[in-house]
């Protein structure tokens, strides 16, 4: 007598619980992120900002009818049927000089008023946003790529290579970040720099991009190096080494996908840090150079108008706050989504 009669009548070839199709790591992380409403709101806000800034030429052309880079000291606009000069005689203080027009709060020219050169602040805000977003994105890309490369090489190959790279990163990081940024900016902004065949002129946007990208490399490289050091000892990497796989293949197939996770978590944070760094450098006049604008330079422009037309300094600051806030919230959401230790939801 076999024990088969004692077993419950179950179909053994069917799964006991309803099964969900197995999803990969990235797919399930994306789903987790999509379900996080705060992170999705932040992503939406960021998308809105990016789109608005990309449409800057359209705004300047159709809505404000001004050239945001040309002075408009003698211009006039029509307000309520009357012609109003863009630069009005000052009433504050001694009554000398001119004050730009304040915000009209109407969809049209000078929505947010004019600056000292009579330029439309709202249009400049959008153009400035393009540069700010561009600089922080490219700087973040450079930073992450360099940090990944140095951290991975140092962590994987160890020994003398690791010692040299770690020492370099330590010296770079021991230099207070802002000081390094300011020093490099001041020296390079005035003359530009020639690296081999590449000649970067003095007013180029590439300078702040490279500088801001460079200064945060140690900040990201250290955790990457730590992670690669741990990965080096993990079983699957040891197995690959034991199987005689070439180093490049191990790096690409085993190490890099894991490092990607760290980099993706760092990305929104670095975007936020780089945006604030660029604003600070531009505020100090050593970031973006005229005639280009960025949110930092507009705050600098608004410095002289701070007490008479505060909107010129306030608006770019608010733009920065909203963007950086959205990036921070998104960063929190991304980190939670990629964390394998977060709660598993069972339907």
């Amino acid at each position, binding site marked *: 007598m076999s024990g088969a009669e004692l077993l419950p009548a179950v179909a053994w070839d069917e799964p006991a619980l309803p099964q969900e199709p197995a999803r990969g790591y990235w797919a399930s992380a994306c789903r987790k992120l999509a379900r996080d409403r705060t992170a999705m709101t932040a992503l939406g806000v960021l998308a809105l900002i990016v789109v608005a800034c990309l449409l800057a030429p359209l705004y300047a052309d159709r809505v404000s009818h001004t050239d945001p880079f040309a002075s408009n000291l003698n211009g006039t606009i029509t307000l309520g049927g009357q012609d109003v000069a863009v630069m009005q005689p000052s009433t504050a203080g001694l009554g000398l000089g001119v004050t730009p027009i304040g915000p009209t709060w109407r969809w049209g020219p000078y929505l947010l008023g004019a600056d000292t050169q009579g330029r439309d602040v709202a249009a400049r805000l959008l153009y400035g946003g393009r540069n700010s977003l561009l600089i922080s994105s490219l700087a973040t890309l450079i930073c992450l790529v360099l940090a990944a490369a140095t951290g991975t090489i140092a962590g994987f190959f160890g020994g003398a290579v690791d010692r040299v790279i770690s020492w370099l990163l330590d010296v770079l990081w*021991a230099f207070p970040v802002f*000081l390094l940024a300011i020093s490099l900016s001041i*020296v390079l902004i005035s003359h530009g720099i020639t690296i081999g065949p590449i000649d970067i002129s003095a007013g180029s946007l590439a300078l702040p991009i490279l500088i801001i990208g460079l200064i945060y490399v140690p900040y990201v490289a250290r955790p990457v190096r730590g992670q690669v050091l741990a990965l080096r000892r993990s079983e699957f990497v040891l197995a690959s080494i034991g199987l005689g796989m070439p180093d490049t293949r191990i790096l690409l197939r085993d190490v890099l996908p894991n490092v990607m996770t760290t980099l993706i978590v760092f990305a929104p944070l670095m975007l936020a840090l780089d945006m604030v760094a660029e604003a600070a450098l531009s505020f*100090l006049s050593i970031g973006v150079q005229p005639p280009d604008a960025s949110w930092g330079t507009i705050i600098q422009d608004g410095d002289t108008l701070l007490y008479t037309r505060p909107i010129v300094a306030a608006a770019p600051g608010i733009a920065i706050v909203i963007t*950086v806030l959205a990036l921070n919230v998104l960063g929190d959401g991304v980190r939670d989504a990629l964390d394998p230790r977060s709660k598993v939801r069972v339907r």
Partner: protein
Amino acid sequence: MVFVLFGISVLVFLIFFATPGADPAARIAGRNASPETLEQVRASFGLDRPLPVQYALMMQRLFITGELTSFVNRGERVVPEVMEAAPVTLSLVFGGAVLWVAGSLVIGLTAAAFRNTVVDRGLMILSLIGVSMPVFWVGEMLNLVTQNRLHDTVLFSWVPALGYKPLLADPWDWFKTMLVPWVSLAILYIGLYGRVLRASLVEAEQEDYIRTARAKGLSEFHILTRHALRMSLIGFVTLFGLDFGVLVGGGALLTEVVFGLQGVGKLTFDALHTLDLPMIMATVMYSSVFVVLANTVVDLLYAVIDPRVRAR
């Protein structure tokens, strides 16, 4: 530690003296200087010597004899100027630090005590906003409100004009001058540290010894402040040490620029702008000494606070 300082001094020297296209003599002589003037300037400032010799001379004059003089303000000794600016920065950073430590403790503890409620969410959002505001913009907005818009109201009529007043000359005036810069500096760090503290407090709450304390019948307040806080303070103190070191060394330069305080940060920035190389070297070395010192102190402190690190 000495190696790192050496590395930093070399790096600074290279950035300012050896960057291609950057000619210190041309900057000192001014624009459109004739070649003879350039040569004269080079000779008198010793810029025609080989780079390692220049470096060694500068280090000797800075550290050993202390008679390094500025390129821009001829004859003005660099080291005493830095020493004069130091109390301003120290006033700013100490006051700001008191504010931000107190503020972040309150926010972190409150958020952890009421975690996952509206209070917690609200405080974390406020902290996040604080972190997201560029410090120089916060300073400008505060200036706008306290110096101009609401200056005539009872709220802010006590705010004196921008600029530093020495502590010993008039303590009350000093306090009134520094209060707004302190708030401006603290906002960013309160946000940052509040979030860090809340996260580590919540993590500490998962530990077994907290469960034991709760089982013993201790009040939540007691548990939070006496037990959980101790563990969280480790991370808090290490972060604080590092940030404090950076700020004392001149990291508050944006705040100093906005509020017109002649501290080390403002001195550094002015020196960088006028490319006053000896002053730059002095201020950067001053700053780096504090940063490296802070790193070392924090490492030692870590061993003191956390017994697990000590036990090998």
